[in-house]
């Protein structure tokens, strides 16, 4: 079933990905085709089959709570688009 234009715009908003009008047209057709392809999943009988989130039998992995040398502050901030002293600077969220 093809996605509507509104559904594509809604998903883009959820993902915080900007889309142009042309993007919406193209993504609508491509995503619809890909979602149609996912229908083959229905053919697999998964009654009573538990989901697997990853293939290793590991749970609740912990490590000793030890103090380690953190990264150098200057090195971490060197890639920041905006900074203020020792902080990352962001635009205000509430107008």
């Amino acid at each position, binding site marked *: 079933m093809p996605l509507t234009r509104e559904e594509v715009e809604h998903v883009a908003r959820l993902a915080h990905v900007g889309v142009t009008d042309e*993007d919406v047209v193209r993504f609508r057709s*491509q995503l619809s085709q890909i979602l149609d392809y*996912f229908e083959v*999943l229905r053919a697999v009988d998964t009654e009573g089959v538990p989901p697997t*989130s*990853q293939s290793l039998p*590991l749970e609740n992995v912990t490590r000793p709570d030890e103090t380690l040398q953190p990264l150098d502050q200057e090195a971490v901030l060197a890639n920041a688009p905006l900074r203020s002293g020792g902080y990352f600077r962001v635009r205000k969220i509430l107008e």
Partner: protein
Amino acid sequence: MNSASALAELTAHEAAGLLRKREISAVDLLESVLERVAAFEPRVQAYLTLTEQLAREQAAAADKRLAAGGAPPLCGIPTCIKDVVCTQGIRTTCGSRMLEKFVPPYDATVARMLNDAGIVLVGKGNMDEFAMGSSTENSAFHPTHNPWDLTRVPGGSSGGSAAAVAAGEALVALGSDTGGSIRQPAALCGIVGVKPTYGRVSRFGLIAFGSSLDQIGPFSHDVEDAALVLNAICGHDARDATSAPVGTPDFTSDLRHGAEGLRIGVPREYLVDSMTPGVRDAVTTAIGAFEGLGATIDWEISLPATGAALAAYYVIAPSEASANLARYDGVKYGYSYLEGRSMWENMELTREHGFGEEVRRRIMIGTYALSAGYYDAYYIKAQRVRTVIRREFDAAFARCDVLLAPTTPTPAFRIGEKVNDPMAMYLNDVCTVPVNIAGLPGMSIPCGFEAGLPIGLQVIAKPFDEATMLKTGYAYQQATDWHKRRPAL
């Protein structure tokens, strides 16, 4: 090519032998590789960043270490690392405008381990943006050309790493494989590519795509080299919670045990209709050759859920990607759009301009599959199918030691051929994704040519049984010489 440049055609283990005997120096070996980089790179474009100055320093240091004795086997070996692996102080782009100027403040565990092993870093390999693609055409910077036919793709997403090794612009390389991104380009470039068992190699410092699927592994000309690189990069790492707390064997120790008595299975669902005649012939002939090596072959193994594996993969990987790539918000690092009217507008425009089309498409697929009302129908359903796929592999491995199959249904396709058709591109991965979904080790080795283009044979083994997988490939390479062919550039 003169004799100096021929050094770049050596395998790593051959070069290591000559380095140890001091018949060649690491500096000579590097200069031979750099000569090829200068000659071929304008046409192949395997690298995103070259680190020649660092490489010369590392080669000089390697010679000192070799002279002192006791140097590890990869000491002095010119290496390419896919640009998805963080390298401290060296730009790491992940093939994306988003990270065009990103300089990591730390090394990935594998980068540190290779440094400790004494490798010489030639540069960072080109790739599909955020490792999403099967052709390296999704690189934000430039495509890479297949050294066997420059009008064709090298495969992807680790296409730069594969092309660098095939062209002699590095002796070995690292890639990452989420759905085939090491094995598929290895097949298309006529070299060996290994995806280790999920959890075998630390993902700390690997820029995340699909965290339940991603695994780092080597490219090389032969299986022995792959074993040497695995020896250097495998092992438990407390900084990766999905790193398996298991010991690392010496992957070279079982190589020469041969294929006598080996139980080989051929899953019939992998002999897909979309295979070209050349791939079908080469792969079936290669499998048949194992009878002469003393193995038994069961051609009737069945993995019925295989047909749903690609769909499960394209639910699971984009879902995980949509979560992993949420971090690119233009605040801490990376491209940042700053001219918008609000914080939210800046974030949307940062992600619209910073990500390429395929990355945005996969974020959208994943966001949709995880959204309210669809989570159970897509994401949880795909995770249940994952369980079915793993159980089918487990049942097959009760009867077989390894499974053999094609790596890809076709040899390298033309640049531009599939770039506007996402579904056609995804179908390249039909034989490789089940291995990631089940977390198994898989390898592609060269097994023939079709119209001058290389073909790959895929070897799949039980979890943490890389030793049997490598032994199988090694036995094949003792009996054949496909892996010794080099492209005429």
